[in-house]
């Protein structure tokens, strides 16, 4: 899948920017605060309806306007247009696919698959378990609408169940226990689906992670990933039984504390290099390399699952990597697909592999020019 054109209207510094891209590598070069990352952000918006790094939508509106619009034309077997309009006045975001309004984001996600490498990837290996769950959930969600829909439902069940646990705690009403049992059934049904799919995902993803290390990053290091959860099975009935049993065991404590204590929302993923846990023993370089490997793994995983090549967005990725790794990554990019790379430090440009089909785009104060 190729993003052919992009148009930004009142999006951050870009009052009216039109871009045409190469279907290979697009280098987007400019100083800090000139509007180069906004281009990646805009691409992310029309692929997912959300901004990068979970900023408020209103922050992305140009200071002279009260709305922004982003339009992109993708080509695959067919040409498709994704358009997103945000109005700060009523805080409303409307997404159109080929000029038809999209009402269910869960049915849109995965139509234009996208993989990003940004500074905040640091959190995936070094941050809290929630960051790792977010990474895994976002990869599976792009590959499966049912997973995303189940995840959204599961989170809604958690909120309702927490409210009910608190009501039981405060009122001591026994008749609410029957209601809790019904919420448990929903929690188990949806939670089991998530857990099973995460177990399956981790098994499959190991291969993609291995390949990323072998082919791109460092063949001397051996990556590993492990899912810490209630049960490592992929048999629905087995997971349900264990979930039910553990939920019954913890019932009293949940009521006393008024909190959802077990389920896939409490799980973690452990990353290893040569059998050592990265979070505890990894160097800064090993962390960074692992983050990049996760993203390349995600790229090829989605490509296989969706039968569609994602667009790859890389925000200042070479700034943090040594020369050797930068060279290896950039020489590999002709095997990926359409890639967008922002760069601040142009002096490193010489280290990177370029072909005549690549495009060099300069961005200054929200204005775009081509080399």
């Amino acid at each position, binding site marked *: 899948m190729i993003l052919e054109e992009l148009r930004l209207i009142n999006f951050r510094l870009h009052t009216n920017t039109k871009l045409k891209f190469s279907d290979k590598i697009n280098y987007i070069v400019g100083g800090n605060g000139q509007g180069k990352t906004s281009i990646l952000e805009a691409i992310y918006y029309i692929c997912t309806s959300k901004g990068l790094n979970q900023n408020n939508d209103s922050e992305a509106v140009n200071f002279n306007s009260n709305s922004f619009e982003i339009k992109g034309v993708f080509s695959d077997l067919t040409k498709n247009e994704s358009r997103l309009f945000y109005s700060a006045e009523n805080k409303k975001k409307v997404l159109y696919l080929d000029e038809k309004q999209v009402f*269910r984001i*869960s049915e849109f996600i995965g139509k234009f698959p996208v993989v990003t490498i940004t500074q905040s990837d640091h959190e995936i290996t070094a941050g809290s378990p929630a960051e790792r769950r977010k990474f895994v959930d976002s990869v599976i969600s792009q590959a499966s609408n049912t997973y995303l*829909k189940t995840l959204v*439902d599961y989170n*809604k*069940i958690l*909120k*309702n*169940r927490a*409210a*009910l646990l608190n*009501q039981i705690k405060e009122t001591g009403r026994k*008749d*609410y226990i*029957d*209601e809790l*049992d*019904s*919420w448990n*059934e*929903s929690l188990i*049904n*949806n939670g089991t689906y998530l857990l099973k799919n995460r177990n399956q995902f981790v098994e499959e993803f190991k291969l993609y992670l291995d390949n990323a290390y072998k082919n791109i990053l460092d063949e001397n290091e051996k990556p590993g990933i492990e899912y810490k959860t209630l049960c490592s099975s992929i048999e629905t009935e087995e997971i349900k039984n264990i979930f039910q049993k553990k939920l019954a065991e913890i019932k009293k404590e949940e009521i006393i504390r008024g909190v959802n204590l077990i389920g896939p929302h409490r799980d973690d993923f452990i990353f290893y290099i040569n059998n050592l846990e990265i979070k505890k023993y990894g160097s800064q370089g090993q962390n960074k390399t692992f983050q990049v490997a996760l993203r390349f793994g995600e790229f090829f995983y989605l490509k296989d699952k969706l039968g569609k090549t994602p667009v790859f967005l890389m925000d200042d990725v070479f700034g943090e990597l040594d020369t050797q790794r930068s060279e290896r990554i950039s020489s590999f990019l002709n095997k990926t697909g359409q890639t967008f790379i922002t760069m601040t430090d142009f002096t490193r440009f010489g280290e990177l592999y370029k072909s005549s089909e690549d495009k060099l785009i300069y961005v200054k104060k929200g204005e775009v020019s081509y080399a």
Partner: protein
Amino acid sequence: MLIAEPLQKVIDELSKLPSIGKKTAQRLALHLLKTDVNDVQKLAEALIELKHKLQFCKVCFNISVEEKCAICSNEKRERSIICVVEDAGDILAIEKTNEYRGLYHVLGGALSPLSGIGSENLKIKELISRFSSEKISEVIIALNPDTEGETTAHYLAGLIKPFGIKVTRIARGLPIGSDIEFADEATIGRAVTGRIDI
């Protein structure tokens, strides 16, 4: 800015309605001001009539002119099956399909602790009491296919099964995430005929 009091009053009342904001209320109020007085009179009377002439059915809580709604008092309906729905609007949707000939029961929502709706806020006791006053052999649960609807279905099934009554759910013919009221007639028709045991 000062708005004449009678106009402000209409704007305030209109903006209490669902999905009508201040701006729309203002536009509607100004429109009414320009409208012929006879038409405004007709609208006002229709609104009053709505409240005076309609009530909720004593048996199933459907919208009704009489104490008992047209469906509950229709002797030709199959009187041993009850279809449980969230709102009276869902009855309209299912009736349009002409696939279902039984009775209904309107719960008035679904369990949602987050919005403070517990079992005591729904017409659940009233449903259970129908099992002793009527001869019911099957209850079809046709709640919205969202998490609240699903959970309420589990809850109802737990309450109904001890009565020895068959509990079914309409098959997943409905598009996921859609409200029954907005699903097209053909899908609901298929859903009602293809129900499954729970």
